[in-house]
Every structure is written in structure tokens, then in C-alpha cells.
């Protein structure tokens, strides 16, 4: 466990020192931006952007089981929205719908960039990262990272060149020729994230990407994700079990109800960015955490009672 995190911080440091694309370079423009907009009001509200994704009355049942029930949610361009909820609350079903893998029940409204769409039209439009890294064992790091680009039809050489440039940022320099079975859990996860990032789509869906990592590696990965997100400005929907993670990362947190899932609480997170690790002890953070935990506690009890375990 500690070995892995040490290895991680070492190559994290390598990334920092490796020049133009290092994280130190990434942080500077972000700070400048934060100073320029001291109101902590995200840019999109001012410019009045239309939502990237709008879900109205989205339900999904599998036989007698109702996974989602009239779920409503809106995601604006450039936002990082986190989703928390008790286990089995239909979070993954929501993601499968947004990734275009499953159709919601009839009667829903799903608008993508303001246009009414069927879920299947979202196939190939959204970059999706499932819970497990699902790296292909016969492909090395670089070839796993370019999988989506290859499927898009980009020539391999070009895709590899593009991915090679991104390696330092993902703390994977020097590992391009390694195979997944030679990597630690944290590194595998970063390869999977890199694959997701290289598939350049407006919406990124991350399904508990750090769930299987130890606590130390996880906090490192969270900070790193924020850096990368602030640089690339993608819209991110991030599922997690961890309330701290949800607050630390998110512009907004959606708390889902126990099954059938819908949005129980939508909490705006006004903590200033860039967020430092010690923000988790600030009174604002603790206050938000209490609100969210209360809501989740109520739902967890419900799902605990109904599932009868």
C-alpha cells in the first residue's frame, strides 16, 4: 500500500520536473484565472450557456425493479458534477444511459446540447470510464490509451504521438511500453483516465474511478484530477461513494435517493478553486459535509431497511 503511494509520488514529481507539460505549469494559468474572477462565480453562469445535458422524467426499470424514477438533472458545460448515493441507487444505470448503452423507459426527455436525443445517439459522443480500469492485457500502456482514438479511425502512429505527449501529465513517463500486469493499481487507473481524456468529448463520465485505490493514492489522484480538469475544461460527471471526494472535487453534488433513484438533493459547492488538500478541515467544508451526510444517511437507512440485509 505504502509502496504504491511512494511510487506514485515519485513519478508525480517526475511529471512536475519534466518541463513544459508539468503540473507546476498547469497550475499557474488556473491561479491567474481565479484572481481574474474573484466572485467565484463559474464563467458559464455569466455567459448564460445552455446546458450540455438535460434530463427530465428519466425512468428505467428492469422487469419489476425500478432503477431510476423520474430523475431530473441538468449539467452545464465545463462543470464538474459529483453524484453520491447509497449503493444500488441506480447511479450506474444513469451512467449507462448517458453513455448511450441503455435506453431509458419511454416518456423521458433527454436533451444533449439542447437537442432532444435518444440515448443510443450518445454512443461515441461521451467519454466513459467504468468502475474497473478494463485495460486490455495484450496492449501496452500507450496502446491502451489510444484505444478510443483507434476506434475513431485515427492512424496508430498519429494516435501514439498524441498519447506520448500526454504521458508526463498523467505521471506515466517511461511506462509507455509496460503492460497492465506490470503496473500498480493507481497507475492502471491513470492509464484508464488517460484513455478517457484522449477520447475528446464534451462530457466525461467517471464511475468511481478511485474507488479501488488506497486512501493516500486516492487523495493524490483527486488533486491531480482537479489539475488536469482545470487545464482541459471538460464537463465531468463523477460518481463516488465518498462524500469528502464529492465535495472536494465538485462544483455541485447530486445526492441520489435509494432505489428507485432520483435526485434527492442538489448542493452547490462554493469552495474556491484551486482547492488545497487542507480545505477538508475548513468550517465551510465540514458544514457541507454535514448537510450531505444527513441526506445520505436517511437514504442509506431506507435502502438498508428495504434490502433486508
Amino acid at each position, binding site marked *: 500500500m505504502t509502496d504504491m503511494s511512494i511510487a506514485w509520488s515519485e513519478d508525480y514529481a517526475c511529471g512536475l520536473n519534466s518541463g513544459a507539460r508539468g503540473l507546476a505549469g498547469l497550475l499557474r494559468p488556473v491561479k491567474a484565472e481565479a484572481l481574474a474572477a474573484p466572485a467565484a462565480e463559474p464563467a458559464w453562469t455569466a455567459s448564460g450557456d445552455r446546458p450540455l445535458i438535460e434530463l427530465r422524467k428519466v425512468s428505467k426499470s428492469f422487469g419489476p425493479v425500478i432503477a431510476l424514477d423520474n430523475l431530473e438533472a441538468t449539467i452545464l458545460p465545463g462543470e464538474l458534477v459529483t453524484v453520491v448515493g447509497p449503493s444500488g441507487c441506480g447511479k450506474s444505470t444513469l451512467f*449507462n444511459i448517458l*453513455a*448511450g*448503452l441503455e435506453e431509458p423507459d419511454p416518456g423521458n426527455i433527454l436533451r444533449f446540447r439542447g437537442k432532444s436525443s435518444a440515448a443510443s445517439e450518445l*454512443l*461515441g459522443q*461521451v*467519454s*466513459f470510464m*467504468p468502475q*474497473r480500469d*478494463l485495460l*486490455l*492485457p*495484450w496492449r501496452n500502456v500507450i496502446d491502451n490509451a489510444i*484505444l*478510443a482514438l*483507434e*476506434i*475513431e479511425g485515427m492512424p496508430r502512429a498519429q494516435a501514439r504521438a498524441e498519447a506520448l505527449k500526454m504521458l508526463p501529465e498523467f505521471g506515466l513517463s517511461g511506462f509507455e511500453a509496460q*503492460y*497492465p*500486469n506490470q503496473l500498480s493499481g493507481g497507475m492502471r487507473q491513470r492509464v484508464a483516465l488517460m484513455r478517457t481524456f484522449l*477520447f475528446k468529448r464534451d462530457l466525461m463520465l467517471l464511475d468511481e474511478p478511485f474507488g479501488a485505490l488506497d486512501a493516500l493514492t486516492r487523495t493524490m489522484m483527486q488533486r491531480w484530477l482537479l489539475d488536469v480538469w482545470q487545464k482541459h475544461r471538460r464537463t465531468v460527471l463523477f460518481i463516488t461513494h465518498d462524500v469528502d471526494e464529492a465535495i472536494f472535487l465538485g462544483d455541485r453534488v447530486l445526492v441520489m435517493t435509494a432505489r428507485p433513484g432520483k435526485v434527492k438533493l442538489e448542493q452547490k459547492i462554493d469552495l474556491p478553486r484551486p482547492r488545497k488538500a487542507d480545505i477538508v478541515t475548513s468550517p465551510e467544508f465540514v458544514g457541507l459535509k454535514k448537510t450531505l451526510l444527513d441526506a445520505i444517511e436517511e437514504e442509506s437507512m431506507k435502502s438498508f431497511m428495504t434490502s433486508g440485509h
Partner: protein
Amino acid sequence: MSTVAASSNARRIGRGFAGAFLLAAIWELSVRGFNLPTYVLPSVSSILAGMVADAGKLAAAARFTAAEALTGYLLGCVIGIAAAVGVSMVPRTRSAVMSVATAINSVPVVAYSPLVLLWLGIGMTSKIVMVAVAVSFTVFLSTVAGLDRVDRKSIDLVRSFGAGRMAVLWRLRLPTALPLIIAGMRVSTVRSVIVAIVTEMLGAYGGLGWVIYQAVLQIDFVQVWAAIIVASAISLCFFGVISFIEQRYIFWR
């Protein structure tokens, strides 16, 4: 890592030769010690002498058999893999094809040899077809099993990148199935030589099976053994080549 694998390979091959040598020594000593008649068991030295004396004839027969086995093998692999891919792409055909395949495969394929000889004559074609049938069933069943191993979530992931059915097959299903496909191909190597020889014994113009059959008629047991040893050498080489390819390219297993 690869040098470690190479040296352990070398050690394994060394042990194999040591075992063969030990067997030959015990064989030679017991034939001499118990004074066994040739028709029961000829001595290793007399078999080796026979192999040298009949070298030309055995080499020609070996080439004949190897050509049949290899052609049938390649044909069988292609047919087996193609059929498995077809069945997995059109799931509705699956249960029909699988039950027929299992039924045919439940009897040793050589049981069909007399019929195939009747239909296709005693030339090379009948042997090639028999080998192809034997190999294609084994490869078909292992390929189907391999293609089934693909994880639903991986398919979903690749689909979310916009992959169609062909891209899923090419980039995900076939590579996932590859370890089992090769395992089926490895087992089939030995099978292909056996089937070729057995079919030759039932009627042929040449080949090791034909040599064995003729030698039995002439009560020349030294030659029977010589042909058997050549046949097992071919089998082992064939098996070794495919095992080598397997180890070299299926490194992630």
C-alpha cells in the same frame, strides 16, 4: 524476464532428452537381457540401424504424411475459427450448430475414415479432409469458449467509444479469445498427425501409416517401429512449434 523463460525452457528440453535417453537405455537393456524376439520388441539399436538403412523411404513417407497433416491442419484451423466467429456473430444459429458439432465430435473422427476414403478415394485428399475435420471441431469448440469469455463491461466500454460489431470483434473479442484458440490449436497438432496416419493405414499410396501397414504385412517389425518413431518425432516438432508461438505471443496469460 525473457532470459529467465528461455533458460527454463532450455532446462525443460534438456530434461526431456534425458528422459528419452533413459527410456532408450532401459529398452535396449531389457531387450538384450531378456533376449526378447524381434516381433515382440526389437532393440533400439536395431531400430536405429533400420532407420538409417531405410532413410530414403522413411523420409519420403514422412514428407507425405507431414504435408497431409499440415495442409489439413491449416484448413481445419481456418474453418474452425471462421465457424466460431460466424456463430458468435449470429447468436440464433448457435444452439443448432453447437449441438451438431458436439454430436459429431463425440465419436472419434477416425470412425468416419472408411466413409471418407470411399467418397474421396485413397489419395491425399481424403487424408487432408479427415485431418481438417478433426482439427476444425477442436478449434471451433475452443474458439467459441474463448469468444464467450469476453466481459460484458469491456464490450460496453468499447461500444461507448463508438465501436461497431466488427470493431468489437477485431479489437476485443478475438484478442480475448486468442489464448484459448491457440490452446485448441496446440492440442490439434498431435491430433492431425494421428488422424493422417490412421487414415493412411486404411488405404493410401504413401505416408508413414502406409509404411507401417505394409511393414506389418511383411512381418518387418523393425520398420514398424522406425516409422512410429519418425511419426512421433514429427508430432513433437509440430507441437513444439505451436507451443513456442503460444509462449512467445500470448505473454499476458
